[in-house]
């Protein structure tokens, strides 16, 4: 097969995965939140509302592509893609199995955080170009928040990198093979539990999820930076948000929960490994939705203070601790 064709097919597969994921996650979010809130969620379209998201996609696709007057046209149109494309790019680094990888990047972890750092730029563009004050406040909040929380997010996984000795996501998974004492999987969640807690908190903020959904806090900013967006442009923001939660959850599964490794079954076939990886990821997403259905929202200044004054020092201390322990063991 021509290498170009291969790359093209892989990119298409990633895009397909991302879109299917979006559809599944929207349905899942509605159902999970519904049941947390003593509701049923969608029930009408298809069996238990399974086709609801499809119907919504059709509706969004056929909706008028509306541009409010007095917006900054160019930025207004580009912003959804600036948010969408990085989250698509981040998919390419995720390993589903030894033989199921879009790309085997030596600095995969670094690459994922790198491309995700572009997202707040798009959010700020959207907020600014909308020429709406609520959108602008939402965009500024998002930028301040993501800068404050990207640092601890990256720092929180450095402990794992120290142990694994690699930034390659597949390599990080490989080092988690085997069992401790014959029955405990050698996942990094056990030695690196504090780092996982830091990762979870910073990840919630990175995803703009409750309790950190500052940029679109609906009871404060109406809808934040997506205020003026409708139709497919709005759908792109939404899709990016859902695929980001998949990426962060998949990263957590890879870095802390042994990725595609099936516990107590080292010779699992590739399809089973990929399934297990997806299940781990979806459990993570379920936890995110659980938090979303339960917690109230923190205030923006408290959020920033927490990020800079608590999370960053805590993650730095944890890296030091990990480093010292590694040296001592060595």
């Amino acid at each position: 097969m021509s290498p170009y064709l291969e790359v093209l097919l892989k990119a298409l597969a990633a895009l397909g995965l991302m879109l299917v994921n979006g559809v599944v996650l929207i349905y899942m979010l509605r159902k999970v939140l519904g049941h947390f809130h003593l509701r049923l969620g969608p029930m009408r379209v298809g069996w238990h509302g399974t086709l609801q998201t499809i119907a919504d996609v059709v509706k969004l696709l056929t909706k008028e592509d509306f541009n409010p007057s007095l917006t900054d046209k160019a930025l207004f149109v580009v912003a959804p893609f600036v948010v969408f494309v990085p989250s698509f790019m981040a998919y390419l680094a995720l390993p589903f199995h030894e033989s199921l990888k879009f790309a085997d990047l030596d600095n995969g972890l670094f690459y994922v955080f790198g491309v995700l750092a572009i997202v707040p730029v798009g959010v700020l563009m959207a907020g600014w170009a909308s020429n709406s004050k609520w959108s602008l406040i939402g965009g500024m909040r998002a930028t301040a928040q993501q800068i404050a929380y990207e640092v601890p997010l990256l720092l929180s996984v450095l402990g794992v990198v120290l142990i694994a000795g690699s930034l390659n996501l597949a390599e990080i998974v490989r080092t988690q093979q085997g069992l401790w004492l014959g029955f405990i999987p050698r996942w990094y969640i056990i030695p690196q539990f504090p780092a996982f807690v830091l990762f979870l908190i910073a990840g919630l903020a990175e995803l703009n999820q409750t309790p950190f959904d500052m940029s679109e806090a609906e009871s404060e900013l109406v809808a934040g930076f997506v205020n003026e967006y409708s139709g497919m442009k709005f759908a792109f923001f939404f899709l990016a948000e859902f695929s980001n939660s998949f990426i962060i959850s998949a990263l957590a599964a890879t870095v802390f929960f042994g990725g595609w490794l099936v516990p107590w079954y080292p010779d699992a076939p590739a399809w089973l490994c990929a399934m297990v990886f997806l299940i781990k990821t979806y459990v993570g997403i379920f936890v995110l939705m659980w938090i979303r259905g339960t917690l109230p929202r923190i205030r923006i200044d408290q959020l920033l203070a927490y990020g800079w004054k608590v999370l960053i020092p805590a993650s730095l201390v944890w890296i030091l601790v990990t480093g010292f322990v590694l040296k001592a063991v060595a």
Partner: protein
Amino acid sequence: MNDAAERAEEVAADSAVADEVGHVPGGVTAEGELVAPVLPKGLRRVPRGVDEVATEHLVVNMGPQHPSTHGVLHILLELDGEEIIAAEASLGYLHRGIEKLSEHRRYAHIGTLLDRADYLSGIHTETAFAMAVERMLEIEVPEKAWWIRCLLAEVNRIASHLVWLGTFGLDIGAMGPFLYCLRDREQLLDILETVTGARMMFNYVRPGGVLMDLPPETEPMIRKFLSTFDKYMSEYDELLSGNEIFLRRVKGIGIISPETAVAFGLTGASLRGSGFGWDVRKERPYGIYPELDFDIPVGSVGDCWDRYVVRMEEMRWAAKLTTQLLDGMPAGDFTAKVPRVLRPPAGEAYAAVESPRGELGVHVISDGSDKPYRLKIRPPALYNLAVIDEVLPGYKIADAVAIVGSLDIVLGEIDR
């Protein structure tokens, strides 16, 4: 060059005139000439534009289409970044002319309008109106009628407070409690429907008594609700007040001193949260409240947290009162003998009840005909809302939502 200088002079002259004239109400002069009103430009507090760190202030419209303004409230906020410099409520989006319409309805028909004023606690407004009319007509209301009125008033108080609790949670960002509260409120609305025939627009309390006797299935329904209510209340309490994020969002936010509260005419839980224990049921007792045993919960600091605690306690007390009212329900007539068409003698009367939001008064002036000459409602939420001009500056946007939520406003009542 010349033009520019001239224009600068013109602008200076204009602003000097504006400063001098300010706000002219307009009207008719002694010579019979009509004078057009001169309105202040923009906000009452003109945006200061630039402060010492040279950031431009932003004036945003919070509402009338904003998800957390509890209806169609419109607040003009002047912001310095996230911080509020000035706030001003702009009202009237839900004005339906209830007071004016009442002047064209017979006394028996007004209840249906009053339900639509404070649509979360219709029984209270109806009771206040009925009391005012009874005072003018000097009707002796049978005891049982008062027991029924108070029973429904307390049931209605819990229902109204549950909506407040849910929407307050929504304002802070927690969606769960809202739907849990509505689940309980649904039971209360079923009870009210069984008794009155309507879920919210009752028109049940009439001058002279109530419309119908309590149906026999009411008591088991209420007792069933009360048996689960305590458990659910502690659940809500844990969901919100057991949450560190919630505590951080409400403690020390929106402090209203007792002096400010009294100066702005705050009543109800918003006043009691500031540590001023004043309740119409205790201070100017009506109905059978003097015979009942209940306490008035009072806060200390006057922040959102105190108002939250006071309202939660009020709900618990309302549940206890409901039990007392069920236990002591006497036999007898549910209404006095009143003529078909009420014609109060010329004169006026004011009667007030403690609605879930505070002192809800109705002032009726009669000219001896079968329709009131003038009817005026004292909506407690309007006075409670007025305090935001004073309280909001200095807090963040997110706090504004929490503070307005903690005051428990109902726009139907404010705009009438």
